[in-house]
């Protein structure tokens, strides 16, 4: 392939003439190895003389990249003395036409940019709150509707969601729960042994796991596992207009898509909490057996005496609240997805982060309101 090149000669009248040869195309120019700017500077230097004439008749091939290079060299107009074939001239006419188009208006940055951003985020937050209340309200209306028409209960969807976010989550919650139990028990026993307070390992593990760790651990796992999946699913359904298709068939999207998810997580999360709590206690028991020689029988026997049963109820109630919150937050963000990839990823991230934050917040509320319940008296 012959490369783009130029040579300087003298025409018949003795005027300087630049003869362009070779292929002035994107590929040939890229192969030339010289950067765009260096080429252009050199050409511009040569073309600086007023009387120079440009001979483009020997150009083998010219595309818009090559033409644009010359156009820049000519300072955005055709030179006065130019020999060129009609086909190539057409390319320059097109460039000239695109130059004549008025540029898109760019709104200048305001000096109050910071204030505008702040205001916009406050308004966006307000929008979030309103939408969230809207969603809650619609679910309450759905509930009333279901009480009057029990046949409309989306049983299949609820069952599918229970399977997806409950049964399929059992292995991972079991593993995490067991390992946390082992770690907690091991670290606590190291401390307790120093005080000779070995037997209090049961109180320590029982109270912390049943009341606090079990529910929060499961909530974080559920938010990361099912919450993100729900947001992504609703988001993609919005992108592909499936939600609109449902609406046109007269199917309520909140009843068919959101209600089952909320109910399923509300049912499944306390069950997962129970499951994870049991396994965490097993882990703790095994580790305590190794470290402190506390027999399994003693551990199991002491547990109900050390930890009042109210704690279990608090833990399970937390599970219900966390599950509902995670599902609501996930659906809220899922419905906000706009039809592009960026929005999908941003909303999924926001969904998981908000859900976990919400869980911690609810947990704090629980800690304060239940401070006089279920703690052993001394």
């Amino acid at each position, binding site marked *: 392939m012959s490369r783009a090149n130029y040579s300087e000669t003298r025409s018949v009248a003795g005027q300087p003439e630049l003869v362009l040869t070779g292929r002035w195309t994107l590929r040939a120019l890229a192969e030339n190895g010289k950067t765009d700017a260096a080429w252009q500077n050199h050409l511009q230097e040569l073309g600086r003389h007023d009387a120079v004439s440009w001979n483009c008749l020997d150009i083998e091939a010219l595309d818009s990249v090559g033409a644009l*290079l010359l156009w820049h060299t000519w300072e955005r107009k055709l030179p006065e003395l130019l020999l060129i074939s009609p086909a190539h001239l057409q390319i320059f006419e097109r460039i000239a036409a695109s130059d004549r188009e008025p540029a898109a208006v760019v709104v200048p940055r305001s000096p109050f940019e910071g204030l505008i951003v702040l205001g916009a985020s406050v308004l966006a937050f307000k929008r979030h709150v309103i939408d969230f209340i809207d969603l809650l309200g619609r679910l309450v209306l759905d509930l009333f509707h279901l009480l009057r028409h029990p046949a409309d209960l989306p049983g299949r969807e609820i069952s599918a969601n229970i399977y997806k976010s409950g049964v399929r989550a059992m292995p991972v919650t079991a593993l995490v729960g067991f390992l946390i139990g082992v770690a907690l028990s091991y670290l606590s026993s190291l401390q307790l042994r120093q005080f000779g307070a070995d037997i209090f390992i049961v109180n320590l593990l029982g109270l912390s796991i049943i009341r606090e760790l079990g529910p929060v651990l499961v909530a974080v796992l559920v938010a990361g596992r099912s919450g993100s999946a729900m947001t992504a699913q609703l988001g993609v359904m919005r992108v592909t207009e499936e939600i609109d298709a449902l609406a046109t068939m007269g199917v309520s999207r909140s009843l068919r898509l959101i209600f089952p998810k909320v109910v399923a997580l509300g049912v499944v999360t306390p069950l997962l909490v129970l499951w994870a709590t049991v396994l965490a206690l097993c882990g703790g028991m095994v580790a305590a057996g190794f470290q402190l020689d506390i027999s399994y029988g003693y551990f199991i026997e002491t547990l109900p005496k050390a930890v009042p049963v109210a704690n279990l109820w608090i833990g399970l109630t937390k599970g219900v609240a966390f599950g509902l919150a995670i599902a609501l937050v996930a659906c809220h963000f899922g419905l906000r997805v706009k039809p592009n990839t960026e929005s999908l990823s941003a909303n999924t991230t926001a969904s998981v982060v908000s859900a976990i934050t919400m869980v911690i917040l609810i947990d704090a509320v629980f800690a304060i309101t239940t401070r006089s319940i279920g703690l052993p008296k001394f």
Partner: protein
Amino acid sequence: MNSIIAINDLSTRLGDAWIHRHLNLEIARGELVALVGGSGSGKTTLLRQMIGLLTPTEGSIRLFGEPLFGGGTARERTLRQRFGVLFQQGALFSALNVFDNIAFPLRELKCFDATTIRDLVMLKLEMVELRPRHALLMPAELSGGMVKRVALARALALEPELLLLDEPTAGLDPDLADGFVRLIRRLGEELGLTVVLVTHDVDTLAALTTRVAVLAERRILTYGMLDEVMQLDHPFVRNFFYSERSQRALANAI
């Protein structure tokens, strides 16, 4: 060297069904070729094999006389810069605006400065009959016809010699489709492109193409000028070209 695409004894197997069996096709420079075939006959599969998204089970495909795969990433990349593809749904990057979508392949080359890229993008927009103010729109804000135009501009950004189109007029109303077909034909002539398109729209085919390849019975049944192809006595050809709708379209085009 003059054949842009040379498919030699190609066979494709998806699952346990043969989609193509001993398929041969050679497309010469400057042709406007339509690839037609019944639905499920493997048109899009063949197109995806031509652009290297799928590898054939057996046989070979050469573009510009070179094999699609092998010879290092640099060679593969250079080869892929020589053709542009227009996907059925446009496949615009939804996170980038129109300007950045068209500028993307140019920026990837890393040999142009910002001014040159801006001018090139504006030139491509002008080529596909869009205005500079459209450059700042996001793909989600575009109409179906505009998505196709922007996708075409992006496909043309690297000055390809070969343009492959998957159902270029699908999803456009007849008026827009006519406009888009005219645009492709004009650009094809001006830029000296070889164009291969998959279509099942007889209007598009009659208005745009110089040659037709019929894909049926897992091979290229026939490849030739439109009237030659129509001479062939085969159920698919009869159905495709001699239906009432097709006859009307062909009558309009001639």
